[in-house]
């Protein structure tokens, strides 16, 4: 794939670039290394702020170059040796359009579903970016808005709202910790990162090399600390941590490469696991009273390992999976020990690690589209190719070019037709002979993106949405007088997580109804109480309605984020008439049936 690069540089060898790194570190410059696969070293790119030397075109993926993100001053001072190169793509058209084209290329003549109507779009975008459904007023307002650009505006509004950081914190907590437990400092870390829209590579660097001294970053240590905490008589789970770093940041589950080269996945070698493992073997949890922390013993020698199938003795030093081994630096006698975590953090989350950029691109795509281009998300390898390889490459290089800006990428995804497609084919009318109506919907594969895929609601999304729908949200958001979270909310959160979350260590990547969840919805006290009349809540509002038609509108807007159709409206009116003697109960039961139905419990 050809891209045009604007280059500003001078030739530099690998040794030279390492020297520069050291100099930059000595200057305490913000010397993040982002090696990406680029080109003959003569070429480097400038971004607009820097002097443009010359332009050229070259292939992505040929040669490696280092890039440093620096203050302009430092950069200018080192101009002779340092290169900077944001990747500007040759195709200047909007990314969402290009995404849609690449998806459409896989339709193979099949007709995709039409775009979602405003209500379906609104519910989806709120759930994805705000983690909850909108209020009935929000919905009314949006549905009645005639601005043709209202969807883009809504996307912007949600990306800018405080709910964005909250949602992303909850989401990335579940993605990264997989329900192992939570920590206040970790929560703060994630929230803060998404509030500031911290670049993904920077977040990963901070997670991979947590700094206990830095108040704003120390919470990141929880990712390691929780995974290697003592657990009864079990050995410290360093292999599990190694596996998770591979899974979550590189999309490669190396578990079966611990004891031998992976038997079924040729790309996964034992050295890839052992190289990463060699770093983590020296790590132990050292949690303070209120802070998660880890300590690292210096690495003195390489890790020896043998395959269970081949008794040849092997050894490896630290290694980014699928990359080359990182030499263990000479330890000065009195110098502070060289941190392998720091080394790992500088080498792994870079554009040069192909799986690093592909993994985040794939995960963000999954987040919005409900199915990974590579699926399962942690099995990137040549025998499990992406459903749309060019699309994945495009997203991966774009997110690098945009400094791993997650918010930017989510915006691009949300603006695409692929995202905004309906999750259902139009209901076939009696004489319908359109291609869409005659499609056998059961045959549609999720990786075709002909329909918007239905997505699981996390326990937190379901809770927030239930509270929103039943009009209990504001009441429960209010902290107690002494600043503690509302006790009922805390308990509801615990119960929702118990009922709807996966077990610890299980990724929550598909819809997962369970008998447990059903019994909870059917019988749990606290949930049913949300449907008792209470000043200002849904039932209270409905009982104050002057007509059953208005009531129906308000109920459907509140719960389903849409207006009822005539049939539904009439049914409800009839129901209320029939149960007129127990009107409150009748409304509550109708609302319960909506809240437990698929239209509510799934993000569609």
């Amino acid at each position, binding site marked *: 794939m050809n891209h045009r690069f604007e280059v500003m540089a001078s030739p530099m060898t690998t040794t030279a670039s390492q020297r520069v790194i050291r100099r930059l570190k000595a200057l305490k410059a913000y010397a993040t290394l982002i090696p990406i696969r680029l080109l003959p070293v003569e070429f480097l790119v400038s971004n607009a702020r820097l002097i443009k030397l010359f332009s050229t075109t070259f292939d992505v993926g040929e040669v490696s170059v280092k890039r440093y993100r620096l203050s302009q001053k430092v950069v200018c001072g080192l101009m002779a040796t340092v290169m900077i190169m944001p990747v500007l793509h040759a195709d200047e058209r909007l990314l969402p359009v290009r995404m849609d084209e690449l998806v459409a290329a896989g339709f193979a003549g099949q007709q995709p579903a039409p775009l979602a109507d405003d209500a379906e779009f609104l519910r989806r975008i709120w759930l994805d970016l705000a983690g909850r459904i909108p209020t009935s007023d929000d919905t009314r307002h949006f549905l009645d808005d005639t601005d043709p650009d209202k969807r883009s505006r809504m996307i912007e509004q949600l990306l800018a709202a405080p709910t964005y950081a909250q949602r992303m914190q909850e989401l990335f907590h579940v993605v990264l910790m997989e329900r192992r437990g939570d920590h206040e400092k970790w929560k703060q870390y994630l929230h803060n990162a998404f509030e500031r829209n911290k670049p993904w590579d920077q977040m990963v660097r901070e997670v991979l090399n947590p700094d206990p001294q830095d108040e704003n970053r120390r919470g990141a240590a929880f990712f390691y600390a929780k995974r290697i905490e003592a657990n009864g008589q079990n050995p410290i789970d360093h292999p599990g941590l190694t596996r998770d770093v591979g899974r979550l940041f590189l999309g490669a589950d190396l578990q079966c490469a611990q004891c031998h080269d992976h038997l079924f996945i040729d790309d996964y070698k034992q050295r890839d696991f052992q190289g990463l493992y060699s770093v983590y073997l020296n790590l132990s949890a050292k949690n303070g009273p209120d802070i998660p922390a880890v300590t690292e013993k210096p690495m003195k020698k390489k890790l020896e390992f043998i395959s269970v199938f081949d008794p040849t003795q092997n050894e490896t030093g630290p290694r980014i999976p699928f990359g080359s081994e990182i030499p263990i630096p000479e330890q000065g006698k009195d110098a502070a020990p060289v941190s392998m975590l720091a080394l790992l953090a500088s080498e792994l989350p870079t554009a040069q690690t192909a799986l690093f950029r592909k993994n985040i691109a794939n995960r963000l795509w999954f987040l919005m589209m409900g199915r990974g281009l590579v699926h399962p998300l942690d099995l990137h390898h040549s025998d499990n190719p992406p459903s749309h390889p060019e699309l994945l490459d495009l997203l991966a290089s774009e997110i690098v070019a945009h400094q791993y800006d997650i918010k930017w990428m989510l915006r691009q995804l949300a603006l695409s037709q692929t995202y905004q497609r309906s999750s259902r084919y139009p209901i076939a009318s009696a004489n319908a002979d359109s291609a869409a109506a005659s499609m056998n*919907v059961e045959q549609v594969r999720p990786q075709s993106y002909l329909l918007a895929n239905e997505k699981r609601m996390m326990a937190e999304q379901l809770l927030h949405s239930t509270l929103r729908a039943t009009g209990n949200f504001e009441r429960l958001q209010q902290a107690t007088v002494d600043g503690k979270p509302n006790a009922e909310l805390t308990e509801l959160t615990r119960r929702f997580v118990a009922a709807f979350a996966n077990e610890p260590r299980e990724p929550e990547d598909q819809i997962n109804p369970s008998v447990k969840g059903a*019994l909870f919805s059917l019988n749990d006290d606290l949930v049913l109480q949300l449907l008792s009349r209470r000043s200002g809540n849904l039932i209270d509002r409905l009982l104050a309605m002057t007509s059953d038609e208005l009531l129906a509108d308000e109920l459907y807007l509140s719960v389903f984020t849409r207006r009822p159709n005539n049939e539904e409206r009439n049914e409800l009116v009839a129901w209320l008439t029939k149960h007129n003697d127990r009107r409150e109960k009748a409304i509550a039961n109708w609302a319960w049936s909506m809240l437990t139905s698929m239209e509510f419990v799934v993000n*569609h």
Partner: protein
Amino acid sequence: MLGAAAAGGLGLGTFLQPCVADELAKNDKQVLLIWLDGGMSQLESWDPKPNTEFGGPFRAIPTSVPGIHVCELLKHTAKQMHHLAVLRSVCTQDNSHSAGVARINRGDPKNRGVEYPYLGSAVAKLLGPTSSGMPPYIWIKPNSGGFKASDAGFLGAKYGALALGDGKPPENLLLNKSISSEEDELRNELRRKFNDRYAVGRRTEWTDANSYVYELAQKLMKRDDLFDESSFTDKDRQRYGTHELGRHLLLARRTLETGVRFVKVNSYHWDSHGDNFNASESLISQFDQPFAALIEDLHQRSMLDNVLVIVMSEFGRTPKINSHVGRDHWPEAWSIAMAGAGIRKGVVVGKTNDQGTFVEDKPYDIGHLFHTWFKAMGVPPDKMEYDNQGQPLPVAHDDCGPIAELLV
């Protein structure tokens, strides 16, 4: 309580998965899996090698089947041997718990990049609930209960196990006091109507899954008598024993009687790396007594032809006796016992060598056993495949087949 009309209104069709053919709907075969976690020693149970280097201290005793001997620690079970089949030539792949437990429970199919279901979830998927409508997969285990979705692998949580922690009922089992049963019926009818409407124009997979778990939940709510331990007779308690595994196997009998398709009973802490022979005396007798009582009861109640009973661990134990008088992990040559539906009675299949170290004739891996059990349960050959969102996946290892000598 819902009347017959309401129960009919649930519609049998919604219970059963689309993949289940009509003839399977009439299949009321059941399974009891007894899982002895950590690894029971084959040499102290099904495959004794008395007075040999690795044979240990115990004697072999005759059983109700002439010519078949088992270890003296199985003295009650020996009297039920005419109902049992023992495979002594099990040879599996993993000697670690972490990998072995999952591998054996999943039948070790070829890796296709998905988490395969454990046997209970597989049966729940392939055969669904019995005509009782009870949840198809109940797991009786020590300590905490709950819903264990992880057994289901890629099949999804709805095929997970409902775990009764030490026999106790799951949370939220009883109908909430604020809801009358009439209201309950009405609200669920509405819920189903909304779901039907939602499903139009969409793939039905998730809506079906959602309906399915609600039907199971409602069925379970009507059988809370299952959890009343006080209703067992003293004689039963005496015969099964009042220890954990005794109580749990007695509950398993009742659970099978209520029509649950697949019941798993786990016992833990069988990993006797040290002091194996005292450990085996202590542990195996806890298995022997209630197991023999259960086989006898299932037979007397004419249930044994319908219920497949399986006893296994993640592996056997090393022939070698280590310095700590223990036995370590041994997948190379061990035994699995079974009885009931579709299984031959009173047979030993396969043989280890005189030292008990390796299989002497043809070794069988767990994949063969999964084929054997699916066949014994009457899963038709054309149903031996899952459809994982378009990806066809064989339900058991492609290179294995059923073991004919174990089947009727």
